[in-house]
């Protein structure tokens, strides 16, 4: 019996989708070399194969059962009866799996490439990866839920009023109307030279800056359905900025645009006259790739957070522009990769940085009212369940990020940490 069961079990492995078999087939067969197969092993693999075919990630392929010409005639008969059972069970399973798929797999490690949140923190969008896959529109708050999926990847940007979403594909930035967040409508395309690295809305909610490797393109989205290209800033226009990084932000008055550079500094542009942007300066010092960038809402000041957990604060006025670097407590992560968030308090007196990784969290708050002496900092570290991309909601008092604690309930995974800033 075990010989027949063993052969049937191998037969069932060949019923898995081809792409799945390419990844797991060999090791599963190796396992069956060691495992004594029983009839329930066969049934279990049949159900596994069916479940995998129903998995959207593998759904496109057909099920290929061996034909009646197979030398294992008896085997085929048993397999057919197993398959018949499976079809009946499958109907029930399909409902269950479909239900799971609507909420499953949305905040995985590979679905944390981008995160953006509306200013009222009621709507969030997460991105699967840079420029590919799909983005997920979340309702967050007391009754969190997945509202919709849209094509596109990171970077993503929401208008502060959360009525328009910009999502990145390899060839263009796609404009989605979120008038009904549960049914996003694709309303326009903003083509660019390659894949966008960063997107920022200006305070007027109609001007958008899209950063590419070699250029930043300014768009007018007064009518989101008809984007109008205003100007393009070539990277070469900035001394010492051969390449743009991912971070890009407008100053609160909308007159200055800051872009991270590949030299790990920040270049500033005067965009008072949008059709004719003017290079101002490159500020800051190289302390690693720029991960977060924030303008003070109240002072001529900007801050950026580098990949090595150093925060640099730059005074934007006065003859001698002053850059002050303040290190944060470093956190280590076995999973690799940190996520950062950086925000000023609404009155611009305090700056808070957060780093998350490997179940650890480090946060520092600096008093940035005066940059003439070392910044007094209040730092603490602790453990956290946050995992993946984190961000401050507009206004800088609310931290949002994925919480994987809710086992099998990813609809609850986007959490708000309103008390973090105290």
């Amino acid at each position, binding site marked *: 019996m075990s010989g027949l069961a063993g052969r049937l079990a191998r037969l069932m492995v060949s019923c898995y989708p081809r792409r799945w078999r390419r990844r797991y087939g060999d090791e599963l067969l*190796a396992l069956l070399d060691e495992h004594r197969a029983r009839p329930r092993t066969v049934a279990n693999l049949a159900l596994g194969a069916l479940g995998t075919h129903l998995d959207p990630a593998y759904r496109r392929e057909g099920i290929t059962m061996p034909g009646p010409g197979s030398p294992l005639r008896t085997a085929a008969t048993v397999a057919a009866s197993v398959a018949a059972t499976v079809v009946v069970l499958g109907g029930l399973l399909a409902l269950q799996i479909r239900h799971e798929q609507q909420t499953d797999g949305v905040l995985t490690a590979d679905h944390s490439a981008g995160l953006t949140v509306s200013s009222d923190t009621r709507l969030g969008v997460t991105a699967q990866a840079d420029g590919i896959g799909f983005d997920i529109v979340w309702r967050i708050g007391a009754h969190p839920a997945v509202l919709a999926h849209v094509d596109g990847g990171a970077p993503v940007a929401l208008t502060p009023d959360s009525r328009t979403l910009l999502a990145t594909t390899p060839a263009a930035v796609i404009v989605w109307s979120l008038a009904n967040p549960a049914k996003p409508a694709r309303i326009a395309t903003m083509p660019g030279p390659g894949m966008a690295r960063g997107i920022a809305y200006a305070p007027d909610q109609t001007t958008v800056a899209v950063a590419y490797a070699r250029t930043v393109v300014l768009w007018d989205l007064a009518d989101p359905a008809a984007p109008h290209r205003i100007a393009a800033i070539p990277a070469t226009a900035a001394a010492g900025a051969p390449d743009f990084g991912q971070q890009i932000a407008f100053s609160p008055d909308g007159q200055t645009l800051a872009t991270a550079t590949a030299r790990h500094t920040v270049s500033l542009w005067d965009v008072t006259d949008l059709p004719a942007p003017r290079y101002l300066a490159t500020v800051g010092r190289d302390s690693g790739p720029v991960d977060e960038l924030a303008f003070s809402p109240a002072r001529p000041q900007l801050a950026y957070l580098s990949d090595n957990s150093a925060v640099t604060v730059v005074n934007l006025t006065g003859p001698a522009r002053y850059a002050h670097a303040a290190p944060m407590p470093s956190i280590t992560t076995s999973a690799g990769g940190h996520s950062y968030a950086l925000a000023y308090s609404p009155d611009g007196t305090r700056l808070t940085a957060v780093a998350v990784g490997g179940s650890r969290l480090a946060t520092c708050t600096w008093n940035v009212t005066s940059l003439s002496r070392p910044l007094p900092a209040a730092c603490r570290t602790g453990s956290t369940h946050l995992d993946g991309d984190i961000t401050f909601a507009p206004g800088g008092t609310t931290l949002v990020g994925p919480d994987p604690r809710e086992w099998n309930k990813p609809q609850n995974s986007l959490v708000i940490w309103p008390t973090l800033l105290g």
Partner: protein
Amino acid sequence: MHQKFDDLGRFADPSLLILTSLADGPRHGYAIMTDIAAFSGVQMEPGTLYGALTRLERRGWVRPLPAEDRRRPYEITGSGRAVLAAQLASMQRVVVVGQRRIAPA
């Protein structure tokens, strides 16, 4: 009426058992199955194991290591460890309350 502990579902969740098995080091498929049988008594079948491994890998809670002679070891990730810790803590609360309530007065 007698019910098997497995019928409670959550306590025999394949993902939970696999993460627990991987918590003290990488293992390949067959080693995961024998380890789970040893510490929990659950005889997990290969279809269940690989279904759960596929999902765990997609969620980023386990990651595959290079195959050793067709057998591929898996290791738990930082976020997998966090999820496991949170789940065990929640079960621990149930265990504590349950044990207190069934203890003779």
